[in-house]
């Protein structure tokens, strides 16, 4: 455990500069864009004279040099102050926070489903390599991989919500019914089934291919031959020796793929009108709500860093050869 503790501290120390680079990069990008918040505000107010603009710039702290602005920006971030959203008229932090829970639930369910289903199907396919289960699973995987998630989402709505009327077509929960306790949980789950399916199938297909290849690779290794020579049953060989070794590349890949998945949620949340971060990002782009957009990018970056941090620790837990270096 000491090994993992040391590793955790080191990884944390390493993510501080990463975060700093992202923050500064974001801030400078904002500086590069022509015009500033005041220009945007004035445009929304229908124009104004130079004196008003200067006054506004003083109010927003835009009249000082860029490094000072950067310093103030970083200090503000330390107190979770992401500025005001021009569209919602609220602090960006609270706008994002309201949406974060939805996205976090949605993403973790989709990730868990893609990972576990991909793992199980990959194992099944590898156990009967080139047999009919493998052919079936691999073909299915290819189909999942080939379907774009927005189209899949629409088709799922058409089938399950419109034709069969089994599941709601969108939203996070039924509005105005005041459900509590178990009923509320079930209600949210019903709303999330279709979005999770449409986001996760593509990733399921990737994980399944990866797990299958990884299992096949590990099964050729010497220690698996040793395990068989020890007289272990095939089930024990797979569970105790193959599976954990085959999981290593999967775990790495989840960390790498997480940001792609976050990107995918923008589309799916929009299709299913889920009030999450992805949809917020989409709306902020359309409405030119720069502060909110920056906040979202920042939160996403932090999310990706956190997930990769967890993945690193998980990997170290799985593989005793990883030392803190």
């Amino acid at each position: 455990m000491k090994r993992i503790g040391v590793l955790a501290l080191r990884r944390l120390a390493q993510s501080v500069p990463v975060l700093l680079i992202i923050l500064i990069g974001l801030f400078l990008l904002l500086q590069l864009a022509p015009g500033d918040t005041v220009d945007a505000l004035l445009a929304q107010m229908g124009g104004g004279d130079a004196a008003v603009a200067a006054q506004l710039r003083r109010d927003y702290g835009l009249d000082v040099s860029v490094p000072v602005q950067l310093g103030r920006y970083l200090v503000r971030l330390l107190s979770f102050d992401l500025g005001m959203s021009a569209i919602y008229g609220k602090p960006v932090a609270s706008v994002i926070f309201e949406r974060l829970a939805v996205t976090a639930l949605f993403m973790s369910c989709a990730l868990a489903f893609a990972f576990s289903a991909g793992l199980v199907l990959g194992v099944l396919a590898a156990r009967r390599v080139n047999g009919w289960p493998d052919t079936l699973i691999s073909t299915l995987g290819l189909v999942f991989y080939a379907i774009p998630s927005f189209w899949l989402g629409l088709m799922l709505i058409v089938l399950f919500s419109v034709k069969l009327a089994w599941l709601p077509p969108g939203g996070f929960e039924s509005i105005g019914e005041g459900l509590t306790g178990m009923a509320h949980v079930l209600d949210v789950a019903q709303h999330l089934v279709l979005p999770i399916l449409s986001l996760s199938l593509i990733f399921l297909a990737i994980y399944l291919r990866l797990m299958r290849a990884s299992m096949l690779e590990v099964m050729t290794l010497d220690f698996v031959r040793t395990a068989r020579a020890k007289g272990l049953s095939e089930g024990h060989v797979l569970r105790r020796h193959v599976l954990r070794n085959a999981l290593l590349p999967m775990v790495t890949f989840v960390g790498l793929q997480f940001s792609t998945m976050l990107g995918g949620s923008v589309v799916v949340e929009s299709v299913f009108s889920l009030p999450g971060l992805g949809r917020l990002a989409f709306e902020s782009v359309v409405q030119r709500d720069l502060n909110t957009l920056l906040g979202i990018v920042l939160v996403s970056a932090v999310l990706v860093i956190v997930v990769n941090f967890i993945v690193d620790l998980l990997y170290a837990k799985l593989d005793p050869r990883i030392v803190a270096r």
Partner: protein
Amino acid sequence: MTTHHAGLGAPLDAAPLLALRHVSVRLPKGADREFALRDVSLQVAAGEIVCVVGESGSGKSLTAMAILGLLPGRVTLAGGAIELEGEDLAGLPPARLRGIRGARIGMVFQEPMTALNPLMPVGRQVEEMLEEHTDQPREQRLARVQALLAEVGIPDPVAAARAYPHELSGGQRQRAMIAMALALEPRLLIADEPTTALDVTTQARILALVKNIQRRRGTGVLFITHDFGVVAEIADRVVVMQHGQVVETGPVQQVLYAPQHPYTQALIAAVPPLAPPQRPVAEPGPAVLAVSGLRKTYRSGGILARKRVVEAVRGVDFTLHQGETLGIVGESGSGKSTVARMLVRLLAADAGSIHLQGEDLLALNARDFRARTQRIQMVFQDPFASLNPRRRVGDIIAQGLRVHGMPRAAAEAKVVEMLALVGLDPGAIRRFPHEFSGGQRQRIGLARALAMQPTVLVADEPVSALDVSVQAQVLALLAEAKQRLALSLVFITHDLRVAAQVCDRILVMQRGLVVEAGETATLFAAPRHPYTRALLASVPGRGWQPGAGAASPPRAE
């Protein structure tokens, strides 16, 4: 009728422990031959060590897998009986076979690093045997694991049981592997090249352990090896295999000193004798390569990481004279390969100087050094990994010449000339490395290095990955090329037999230092340093002089 060939010490009326009778193994359709094993018959009695010897492709490992019922997919048993204590394993259902594997047949594999699960503590892997085959409660199993690890000579069994494979040395891992195989006191132990991946001193200790176990427990051992030295060290009886067939079998003395079959004779003839041949006493030529104070320390880590420092080479000096072969011998971690790499500047030396014909190579900048690379070339160990698989052989050999500005036509002519020199057909130019055997690839590697017409050739374990008969051919070729092209050779090897035959002088390295240096004959006859003595004492089969009764061995000098 079954007892005629039973081993020494086996009761005459008892059935042998293991008997293979006319076993054939069929390869899948479309393979280069129909049978991997044909009509293989052999026996192992209790308390007897039977060595199966053969080169790669002889089917010796497949024989072991056939006994265990672990033939790879689509490779099938085509006939014959595999009797363990009178019971035919060939017809048993998989579940019954699983009960026999591990419990009645213990198995030890070649590469102890890869043969153990890297993610499971060693003790747990040993315990698994007991868990699978017995009803012992956990405390009893754990106590047994400790006892087993202690029995195979692991110094701290409690710590070793908790350790992961990568935390143990190669020798410790192989001991753990043996402990695992012995967990259920099997009557038969199958060991497939168990010492091939180990250093020579470690190998000697593991061989002693196997022999000890066989004596103490009366275990029958089927020991698979390619090394006649190991055979001489450990075998009671010998089975020689070639192309999936048994060509000769008999007591060890008979096979080693009076081999009957031409293949056995050829194999034994190809084993380099440990005694250095008589060399004409010649004035040493002028020094071509003078190395002094060479150092290399590997450091890893940085600002955010823990620093790890390994002093690989700690001050090495030597001089190579014109026309001489200088051997550098040592075990893994001795720094010998690091020295080789520094000589051709594949690694940057930390300190010291390398004077090639009076010019300090280490003082040159990268561009000036590149101009000198023609004069010092290297041949690598692994003929499979050291040639780019996507390039044609002709391009591989010509590349160096072209880089140094030779016109295309001249380079191509040179390639043909070099291929002829190493005994390959000019048609090889258009082919890819994977189309050649290991020995042929090593010839290609040699042709590539020689095409540059170097003054000094650095050969890093050039024959270690090759079968013994191929090894003899490549060594002979190297000797011939050296003569024809007036080369001076730095020859790095862990194999003292090869060193004895090839080298004029030898440096013995241990932990980054040269502990002894001298004329080959002197060094072998009167080693001064304790480490040199330990190395020489560990050479398997050192008491056996190959060639007595067989054709005279090829000389490479």
